[in-house]
């Protein structure tokens, strides 16, 4: 019998259906953590349907994280009411891991607060829950009914995934980022190369990346269809997580003879910045094909690229300069911690002086319901992860996805611009 992948090892250690399973089997597995944001509202409504009411019990409140990141602060009376419903529920049920509107995006806050650790099995009511794969956790997004089931039972069904491997080698050129590598992969192998599958990202490039850059890759991997998206399980992960929590954990590494359904190689030594063009993430072109396309808005933020290093590279490009008159640049830090760090280091000042506006941490303009929307003839260069038709306002608007460096250089020039010249 061949060895096990990371996904197979973590599922085996959590399985309630034995360990003699193979890819495509369905097992029940116990959960270490459930993360939910606005979808908690649906959980509360379902919870109140349980009869008799004395059976309304969460399996383990300490294994739940609830936070608000999409509609912060509440942009409508309806969302304010949903927030209110959830706040009361959280208090009543004794969920102490609750982060109100001030903290930031779930996929940044959960690791920052030490909730995502190696070897864990995590579900989240958000598709980009794959992000915690950067911390060697098997984590995936689910819908609200699955969340509800998890809240009550502490377990859920999983289809055992096949695993594919992306081996990334070479040194990323100046101002070319991990975002460019993952967009390149989407373009080369399509938005469904990893549907139902677990990905292991390996290779020297992955090893050399910062944790933040690895999070970008595990986050965007959802756009390839991935169920889990593991970064490299190494000392960097251990050091990062240990700073955030005293909880014990152990790195899970794949067996040397683990079976991969496919292996792909990418050499990034000469990689050009890459851009996902409207209206799918796998409609990818190298930046040289797009230079000169005028943009009206530049968005720097999101769970993909709203971290300190992303703001830092943008500030480096914009330092002492003024963004183009026809561009609105919106910067949304991924968390309060990053927001403060940028304020203290002077990066916020640089960005504001260059003409950007900085918003409170959260999902921001990425999902088209909290300001920063686009009119019918407008174009946006964005560091986020989705460019679907109508995602950021008008269905006639166009969203281009690139790295934070590309967003900053494009804001400066007023058109899609190669950041390697800055």
């Amino acid at each position, binding site marked *: 019998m061949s060895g096990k992948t990371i996904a197979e090892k973590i599922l085996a250690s959590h399985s309630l259906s034995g360990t003699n399973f193979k890819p495509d089997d369905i097992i029940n597995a116990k959960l270490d953590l459930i993360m939910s944001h606005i979808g908690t509202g649906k959980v509360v409504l379902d919870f109140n349907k349980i009869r008799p009411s004395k059976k309304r019990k969460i399996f383990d409140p300490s294994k739940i994280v609830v936070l608000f990141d999409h509609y912060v602060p509440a942009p409508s009376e309806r969302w304010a009411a949903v927030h209110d419903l959830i706040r009361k529920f959280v208090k009543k049920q004794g969920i102490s891991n609750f982060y109100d509107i001030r903290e930031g995006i779930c996929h940044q806050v959960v690791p920052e607060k030490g909730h995502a650790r190696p070897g864990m099995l995590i579900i989240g009511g958000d598709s980009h829950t794959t992000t915690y794969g950067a911390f060697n956790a098997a984590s995936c997004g689910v*819908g609200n*009914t699955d969340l509800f089931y998890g809240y009550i039972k502490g377990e859920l069904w999983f289809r055992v995934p096949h695993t594919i491997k992306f081996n990334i080698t070479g040194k990323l050129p100046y101002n070319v980022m991990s975002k460019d590598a993952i967009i390149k992969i989407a373009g080369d192998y399509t938005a469904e190369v990893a*549907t139902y599958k677990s990905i292991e990202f390996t290779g020297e490039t992955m090893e050399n990346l910062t944790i933040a850059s690895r999070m970008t890759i595990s986050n965007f991997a959802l756009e390839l269809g991935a169920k889990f998206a593991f970064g490299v399980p190494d000392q960097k992960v251990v050091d990062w997580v240990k700073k955030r929590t005293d909880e014990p954990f152990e790195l899970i590494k794949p067996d040397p003879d683990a079976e991969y359904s496919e292996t792909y190689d990418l050499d990034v030594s000469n990689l050009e910045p890459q851009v996902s063009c409207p209206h799918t993430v796998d409609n990818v072109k190298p930046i040289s094909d797009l230079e000169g396309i005028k943009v009206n808005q530049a968005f720097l933020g999101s769970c993909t690229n709203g971290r300190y290093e992303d703001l830092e590279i943008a500030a480096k490009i914009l330092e002492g300069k003024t963004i183009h008159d026809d561009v609105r640049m919106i910067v949304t830090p991924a968390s309060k911690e990053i927001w403060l760090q940028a304020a203290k280091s002077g990066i916020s000042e640089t960005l504001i002086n260059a003409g950007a506006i900085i918003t409170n941490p959260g999902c921001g303009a990425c999902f088209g319901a909290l300001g920063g929307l686009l009119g019918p003839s407008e174009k946006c260069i964005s560091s986020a992860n989705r460019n679907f038709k109508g995602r950021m306002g008008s269905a006639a608007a166009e969203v281009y996805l690139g790295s934070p460096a590309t967003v900053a250089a494009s804001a400066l020039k007023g058109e899609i611009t190669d950041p390697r010249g800055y």
Partner: protein
Amino acid sequence: MAIVGTKGIKEYKDILKGNVWVFPDNVDTDAISPGQYLDDVKATLNHTCETLIKEFPNQVKNGDIIVAGRNFGCGSSRETAPIILQEKGIAAVVAESFARIFYRSSFARALPVIEVECISKEFETGDEIEINIPNAEITNLKTGKKLKGKKIHPILLNLLKNGGLEKQLLAELKQK
């Protein structure tokens, strides 16, 4: 609050018949359930899928069935995507492949979804379709063409029969 009811869930039947809407590849959840209407059921019902097929929200009928290309339901984890299709009367979705979260949420909501290779070429909007769910057999009743899809895992088929995960759990808690 977004739509959370279960009234769109239909009673399970082995055989379904209905009129077809053909959808393209990569239908995303923002198209089915746009972000700007997530707090407004009525607006979502009025605007679902309009960026793909303008007349869909007005003309879709109870019992209609969607036939689509690859990667149906990609994008967000918003469960309003399968829910809104059910609320509009959609009885099943047959596609060449499904995005993972849409797939599992469909079973949570007891919306039958079946994977069938190359199916989108075999149908036009308005054709009549027959689906044998347990056998994953699809027939285009207009052309007579028969196709065989991937059989639904018995555990998931059971979820469809039980009316979805929410109903199953609530019933289980009541019995205990």
